[in-house]
């Protein structure tokens, strides 16, 4: 796997190799094809930016603006994956070259840059977007120009585009297992649903409410605050009055910090679990801003935590830190972003072609045994089969993984009975 | 001046009071102005002179009292309605449009096209141009029609503002210190101008310059602490001991 390494070993490279030493082969049967086996004319019939030696892809995230905070991790993970893929021989024997564009936290800019990456740069795949709004903005562009987007964020579902591979979880995957767990293990009977005011928290809470009600349990309150809101004392008082067993919080961004600090200051000690706090919106990235001491004792329900003890993950974490510094943290979305380039490579090599249509055909069924989160497989609906885990927040900003679902959960972006 | 019946007054102010947070700047003031009269209001600083003009033209709302102009009650009207009724006001500091030319300044004051639609469809026809030129001649600015108002001298600016009033053809002109900051020759010209004006208009003037007041005034009203202290011809007022005490005697 190292035969193509030509450059002298830099520190980064060495760190990378340390990580790659444990990268096993891919889970599908056919052996990786090499460049000489697939001529460019055959592998690229639609005029993408593919030569005999290189293939161009796009990275499209916000480097500036309010979303830069969240999207940085995804950019870093995607660059790491691309570098590792190149170090291991590239895709169909071709090195990946990436073109990075800044969405600037502005949705039309995303659409504009997506179009540029597809029309002008003819990139073979694009890894990017973070917010639902940015994805919605680029979606028509991808469908019109037939591109392929690898989208990393856990999101609300209700979408299934032939031009997107969703590498994060859709809402039901993330939510139902978490609620089941808290009901089973903690005996929770009542829930207070709380979120930032936009589509993901609202849709997620809707699914949560339906599920809670199906289980015959009680939702004692549900409300939303504008993005960026910083005053949560009133809702904390309401929570104290209603005494729910679980605060189910989907607060995002700067509001998160304010919410957890005020919760702590109001004397709600999460380690006493009265009430217990379960969130689907706080990853290791968010904890950096909140401060581990303010959220310790809370539970998070998602598919990946940096502290996952498997070998894939250990290798991934050490390469990531080798490349981006020991201070960097890896959250759920960062890991999902890391899967993007690998899933694409697998699809290209399975199809023996860079053509978007062939990749689309090849994608369902592709599995990745090397994923840091363990094992994932692409579903017919372009989402991933994955496990959901419960993390228990520690003071140092990491989570202890105390539970994971036994089976892979089937992605179901249009869940019947939850709409 | 002959004694006239109240109904013949052009302007009659009765029991006018305005209070700012309890301080009565004008207190139960009554004042009558006849047609074609030049009335000068004098008084020490803070006597309420400018406030009276503000009240008449609607810039300040009266707390009590009435202002009748040709039988129309002005206290309920809005500023532009008072102007339409025939009252024109010149401010203490020359208030002209510095970014526009003298011509444009006068043209904007021409009483036509004062509604939004009127302003949009306003045409600069012969009537406007003739009238502007006529007024410009009167205010000694005939040769400066295309000059930007900003570069006029202080005195010229005062004249321009008077001209802007004249072109409205108001029946009552109110001038707040029209000669302040003028040179002697400008002052003489201004007095001459005022004397032309009163052939067609009544005028209320606030002035400090006693020489000038003597030159123009028909009657003088002395205000003190928001009240009329004395009223009458210049000679009478000058010799009123109350006036001497608070004002002239300084």
């Amino acid at each position, binding site marked *: 796997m190292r035969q193509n390494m030509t450059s002298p070993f830099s520190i980064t490279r060495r760190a990378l190799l340390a990580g790659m030493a444990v990268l096993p082969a891919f889970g599908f049967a056919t052996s990786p094809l090499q460049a000489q086996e697939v001529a460019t004319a055959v592998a690229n019939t639609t005029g993408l930016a593919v030569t005999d030696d290189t293939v161009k892809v796009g990275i499209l995230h916000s480097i*500036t603006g309010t979303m830069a905070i969240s999207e940085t991790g995804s950019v870093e993970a995607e660059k790491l994956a691309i570098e590792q893929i190149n170090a291991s021989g590239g895709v169909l024997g071709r090195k990946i070259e990436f073109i990075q*564009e*800044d969405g*600037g936290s502005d*949705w039309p800019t995303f*659409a*504009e840059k997506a*179009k*540029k990456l597809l*029309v002008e740069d003819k990139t073979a795949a694009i890894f990017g977007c973070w*917010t*639902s*709004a940015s994805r*919605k*903005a680029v*979606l*028509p562009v991808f469908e019109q120009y037939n591109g392929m987007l690898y989208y990393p964020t856990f999101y609300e579902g*209700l979408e299934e585009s032939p031009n997107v591979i969703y590498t994060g979880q859709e809402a039901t995957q993330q939510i139902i297992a978490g609620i089941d767990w808290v009901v089973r293990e903690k005996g929770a009977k009542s829930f207070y649903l709380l979120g930032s*005011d*936009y*589509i993901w928290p*609202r849709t997620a809470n*809707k699914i949560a409410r339906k599920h809670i009600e199906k289980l015959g349990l009680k939702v004692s309150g549900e409300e*939303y605050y*504008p*993005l960026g809101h910083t005053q949560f004392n009133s809702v904390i008082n309401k929570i104290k009055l209603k005494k729910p067993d679980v605060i189910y919080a989907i607060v995002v961004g700067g509001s998160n910090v304010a919410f957890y600090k005020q919760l702590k200051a109001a004397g709600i000690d999460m380690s006493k679990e009265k009430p217990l706090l379960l969130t689907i919106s706080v990853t290791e990235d968010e904890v950096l801003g909140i401060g581990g001491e303010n959220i310790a004792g809370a539970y998070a329900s998602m598919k990946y935590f940096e502290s996952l003890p498997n070998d894939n993950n250990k290798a991934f974490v050490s390469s990531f830190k080798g490349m981006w510094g020991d201070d960097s943290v890896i959250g759920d979305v960062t890991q999902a972003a890391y899967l993007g380039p690998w899933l694409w490579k697998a699809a290209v090599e399975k199809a023996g072609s860079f053509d978007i249509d062939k990749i689309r055909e090849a994608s369902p069924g592709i599995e990745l045994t090397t994923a840091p989160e363990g094992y994932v497989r692409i579903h017919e609906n372009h989402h991933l089969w994955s496990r959901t885990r419960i993390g228990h927040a520690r003071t140092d900003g990491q989570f202890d993984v105390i539970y994971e679902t036994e089976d892979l959960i089937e992605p179901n972006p*249009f869940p019947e009975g939850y*709409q | 001046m002959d004694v006239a019946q109240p109904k013949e007054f052009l302007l009659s102010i009765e029991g006018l009071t305005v209070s700012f947070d309890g301080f009565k700047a004008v207190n139960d003031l009554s004042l009558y102005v006849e047609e074609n009269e030049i009335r000068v209001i004098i008084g020490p600083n803070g006597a309420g002179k400018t406030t009276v003009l503000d009240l008449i*033209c609607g*810039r300040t709302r009266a707390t009590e009292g009435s202002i009748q102009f040709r039988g129309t009650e002005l206290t309920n009207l*809005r*500023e*532009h309605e008072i*102007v339409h009724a025939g009252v024109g006001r010149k*401010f203490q500091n020359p*208030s*002209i*449009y510095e970014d*526009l*030319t003298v*011509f*444009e300044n006068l*043209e*904007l004051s021409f*009483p036509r*096209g*004062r*509604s*939004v639609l009127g*302003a*949009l469809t*306003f*045409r*600069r026809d*012969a009537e406007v*141009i003739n009238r502007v030129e006529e007024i410009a001649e009167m205010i000694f600015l005939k040769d400066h029609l*295309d000059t930007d108002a900003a570069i006029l001298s202080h005195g010229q600016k005062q004249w321009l*503002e008077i001209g*802007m009033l004249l072109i*409205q053809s108001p029946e009552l002109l109110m001038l707040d210190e029209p000669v302040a900051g003028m040179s002697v020759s400008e002052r003489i010209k201004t007095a001459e101008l005022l004397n032309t004006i009163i052939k067609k208009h009544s005028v209320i003037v606030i002035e400090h310059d006693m020489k000038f007041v003597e030159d123009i005034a028909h009657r003088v009203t002395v205000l003190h602490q928001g009240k009329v202290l004395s009223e009458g011809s210049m000679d009478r007022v000058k010799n009123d001991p109350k006036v001497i005490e608070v004002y002239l005697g300084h």
Partner: protein
Amino acid sequence: MSPALFLFRKREWIYFAILAFILAVVFPTVFDNFRLNLIGKYLTYAFVALGLVLCWGYGGILSLGQGIFFGLGGYCMAMFLKLESSTPEATAIQSTPGIPDFMDWNQLTSLPFWWEPFHSFTFTLFAIIAVPVALAFIISVAMFKRRVGGVYFAIITQAIAAILTILIIGQQGYTGGVNGITDLRTLLGWDIRSDNARYVFYFTCVALLLGSLILAQLVRVSKFGRLLIAMRDKEDRVRFSGYDVANFKIFIFCLAAAFSAIGGAMFTLQVGFMSPSFVGIVPSIEMVIFCAVGGRLSIFGAIYGALLVNAAKSTLSESFPELWLFAMGGLFIAVVMVFPEGVAGLFRQHIEPLVIRGLSIFRIGKVRKPRPAAE
């Protein structure tokens, strides 16, 4: 003289011709469809900047809420397009087919009544102007009749922009929430995403912009225009010359709102969606900078300003994302401190004299202040 010739001075006719030539001939020949679409998008901001020139540059009314009207115009257009693409057939998989997808996700089972009229294209065209102007009218009557101006007006318009954003985001079942109204496909059965449509929209946009420019110029050269300047300098004097100042402010604010709304509608058509991120505070202030950079007293400047700033934003943020905010911040400071009259001011000072000298050879433009004679 025909009235049309009054509209511009000779020199200005030349500038108008140059602008029209650049927009209608140069750009379409030089740029490919993709870049042209981008320019079309920038031009939609030029509508807002044009309105701001009249309202802020001439009238002295600084609105920090032009995004409100841009957004409302855009939303009206987006509602029509969304309804058109939400046919029962296209939305068959929904629990309630025939309503926009985001409504279905939010458990709406029927179209809200106020969406109904947007099935009609005629009504939509009417609403694009009427809705924003109605709101502008309410705001401006309330404010100007009570003589609220300057800074207070700016801050209140800003607050209204904030309120509207929160409302749109919060009522996602009716508005599409933070994602906005997306996935717009056809206009009267015609695919708006095709290259052909883009060309047509670009030229429509240019035509509307030039039309708005002429309208703005009509206002500017009329007595109304001079009154605006007069009001900006000495509001009281205008009042005491017998004008109801508030009415004039209301009119110009509504006109600026109408321009913004047209821009918003064209934006929706060219970009293919509308979202609350164009309604809020930040875009509204950015729109002010387009106008300031172009020159707050120049209607031509507004258009060049919008083009320049946006082009700079695209290139700078492509190559040096970190520098972009510095550049933008610097621009704000520079237009205030260094060149308050913007690009148009620089042009007037440094380039125009040369142009005039050049033209005078052909006896076209004469250096004198013309005062049209009586007819």
